[in-house]
């Protein structure tokens, strides 16, 4: 098979790219790239993939299942339909990918298709002139633009220009709970923040952790702050930070929100040893579906993995979900949500014209076709394509999909995750301080002071 030589060549180019990074990347152990062969073994693709690098585009994406399967099959569909312009996929683990893609772009070795979350990271690519401006392409292909949720374009737009193709799914953060645990203590799911604080001692008394949390990953803790900020003061508090207003973190409501989360930590609201748990290993989800924790605040994407990994936890109707409850006296609209308004693929400006053409064909074709909609619905997530709800009826996850769809449609504000919205520099300081905040090693005021120092950076 000729495709074997191609994948080896690509592997070599990956290795040579890796050399200057040295030990640093070797450290991301167990996260080595996994090649998914172009053409998926179909005979018609081999002739072109053997033809040389210029005719084939490269695409890096995340390896978490079941999303990885959908991405791989999407690429395979594209390759079958376009034997003369195939895409070669490589997968990476979530946290390792964030570093790898940045280094590859800086070294001028970026893949043709740069997968990401938009926002602040995309802005840094744009400022470095590393990604293509797609505004005119979207103007010419109005049909593509009209197919997608308008809210998904926010994080793809930098200074009025579109630099990425929104794709895949809407992922609001959802409050999951285990109905069995609530039966055990004979309580109802929380209606307010006050209810949450009241539930904590009840669960602890029964030996069930109130909340599961993969605290070592840090962004998992951040989701709590995102909601507390929003419910207390609305999206305006963080917007002020995002807009670079001086001392924006000193807002009394921000300080109050930071204090509320520490209150929950002090009350043993999170599972014991949460700082030792990572989200990458899905151990936080395992705590919920094995009945060790009663609730979990997590992204919509975990529904899919809990259905796959959790035995009959999801299929048996034990999983409950709701939007984050309001806080008494809070100004924020309880319909608001936070999370990922979509995923984003940019085109590297270093790619050859042929590769760019392949990428655009992929955008208009397999990436958002009806099969993609069906596949994403199949993973238990809502695609960002309009009218996707028509596919829900046939899905076993109908209720969850409708719930997410309604959140997305009704939310007055669908805020992007903070670490994605901010610049990488500010995001790193943010995650660092969040971890210390949950560790109770800094006070809310110290948090605000540390964060004010990097506003606008």
């Amino acid at each position, binding site marked *: 098979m000729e495709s074997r030589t191609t994948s080896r060549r690509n592997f070599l180019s990956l290795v040579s790219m890796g050399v200057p990074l040295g030990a640093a990347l070797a*450290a991301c152990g*167990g996260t080595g790239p996994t090649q998914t062969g172009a053409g998926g073994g179909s005979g018609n693709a081999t002739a072109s993939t053997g033809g040389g690098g210029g005719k084939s585009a490269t695409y890096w994406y995340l390896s978490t299942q079941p999303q990885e399967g959908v991405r791989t099959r999407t690429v395979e569909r594209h390759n079958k339909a376009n034997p003369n312009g195939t895409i070669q996929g490589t997968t990476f683990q979530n946290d390792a990918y964030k570093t790898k893609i940045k280094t590859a772009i800086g070294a001028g070795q970026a893949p043709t298709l740069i997968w990401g979350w938009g926002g602040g990271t995309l802005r840094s690519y744009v400022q470095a002139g590393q990604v293509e401006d797609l505004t005119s392409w979207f103007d010419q292909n109005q049909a593509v633009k009209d197919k997608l949720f308008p809210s998904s374009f926010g994080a793809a737009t930098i200074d009025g220009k579109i630099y990425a193709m929104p794709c895949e799914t809407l992922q609001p953060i959802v409050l999951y709970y285990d109905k069995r645990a609530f039966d055990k203590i004979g309580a109802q799911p929380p209606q307010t923040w006050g209810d949450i604080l009241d539930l904590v001692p009840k669960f602890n008394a029964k030996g069930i952790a109130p909340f599961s949390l993969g605290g*070592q990953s840090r962004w998992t803790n951040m989701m709590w702050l995102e909601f507390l900020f929003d419910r207390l003061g609305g999206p305006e508090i963080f917007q002020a930070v995002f807009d670079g207003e001086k001392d924006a973190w000193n807002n009394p409501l921000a300080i109050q929100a930071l204090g509320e989360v520490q209150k929950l930590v002090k009350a043993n609201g999170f599972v014991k040893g949460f*700082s*030792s748990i990572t989200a990458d290993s899905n151990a936080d989800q395992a705590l919920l579906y094995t009945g060790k924790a009663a609730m979990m605040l997590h992204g919509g994407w975990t529904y899919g993995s809990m259905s796959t990994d959790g035995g009959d936890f999801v299929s048996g109707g034990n999983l409950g979900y709701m939007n984050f409850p309001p806080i008494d006296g809070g100004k924020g609209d309880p319909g608001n949500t936070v999370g990922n308004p979509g995923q984003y693929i940019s085109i590297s400006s270093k790619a050859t014209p042929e590769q760019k053409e392949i990428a655009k064909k992929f955008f208009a074709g397999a990436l958002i076709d009806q099969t993609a909609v069906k596949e994403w619905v199949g993973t238990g997530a809502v695609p960002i394509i309009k009218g996707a709800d028509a596919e829900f009826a046939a899905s076993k996850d109908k209720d969850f999909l409708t719930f997410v769809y309604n959140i997305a449609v009704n939310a007055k504000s669908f805020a992007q995750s903070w670490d994605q919205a901010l610049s990488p520099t500010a995001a790193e300081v943010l995650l660092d301080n969040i971890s*210390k905040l949950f560790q109770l090693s800094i006070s809310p005021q110290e948090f605000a002071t540390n964060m004010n120092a990097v506003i606008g950076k």
Partner: protein
Amino acid sequence: MSAVTTTARPASRAGRGGSLGWMTVPALVFFLGFAVIPLIGVLALSFAQWDGLGEIGVAGFANWGAILSDPGLPHALWITFLVMAVSWAVQTPASILMGAFLAGHQRYRAVLSVVFFIPLLLSSAALAITYKALLDPNFGLGAGLGIPLLVQDWLGDPVLAFGVVIFVVSWQYIPFHSLIYQGGVRQIPRSMYEAAELDGAGRVRRFFSITLPQLKYTIITSSTLMVVGSLTLFDLIFVLTAGGPGDATRVLALDMYKRGFQANLMGPASVIAVILVLVGLALSLLLRRLGGRDSGHSQLEGA
């Protein structure tokens, strides 16, 4: 090198010197290419402003000022020093004892020395992932075996997390240093022990009066490797704790990586890299000074 330039020397000597000089070329090229040139690059970057993506701009001394006044630097230095000191204090006695034990020629000791060597064969990243899984408070070893003592917030409590790092590092590197000590002990002339035995010295006395003093240079070699090695310790800590909880295990190397590759601040990261190089050089010089001054002095007097 000198042989090539000094033509006055006899031809035969020049020829010999020339061939020896030539042999250093591959090593020199590698050293230049992979150590000196990147080092100059890092030094230059420490005066530059670069996010790893775009154009490189000039920053002057701004990076140095920012890093040297950052409270994170003394903290990272302190953690690095602690890792160095504690892991040295744990590893050295254990390695000497194991090395002396394995130096015996009995067959079971030969078998044991192969078994002890295994941790060194494993990659640090794989080790870290394994330990992380074993130490998981909910699904790890303690929970699985039902031993409450093992169910701790191993990686979430600053003191415990630091202890875990030291433990795993020691677990991995003690076999290596034992090997060095094993070689060292085997080089001690048997006649010394025989003489001591005749004088009525027991096992313990022989260990402290002969083995330990004779191992002086081995200890210095092994300590240099340990100290400089713990300075660049990165992969294991990165995978195990990622520097956390908070910044409890954030050593200098990790601080550098986080600033450079996660926060996109290549300039300040390069400043830390330069500091790392300087500290490493100073330490290995110091250790050489400690033991190397009288290296001409014989340790085998009376043997």
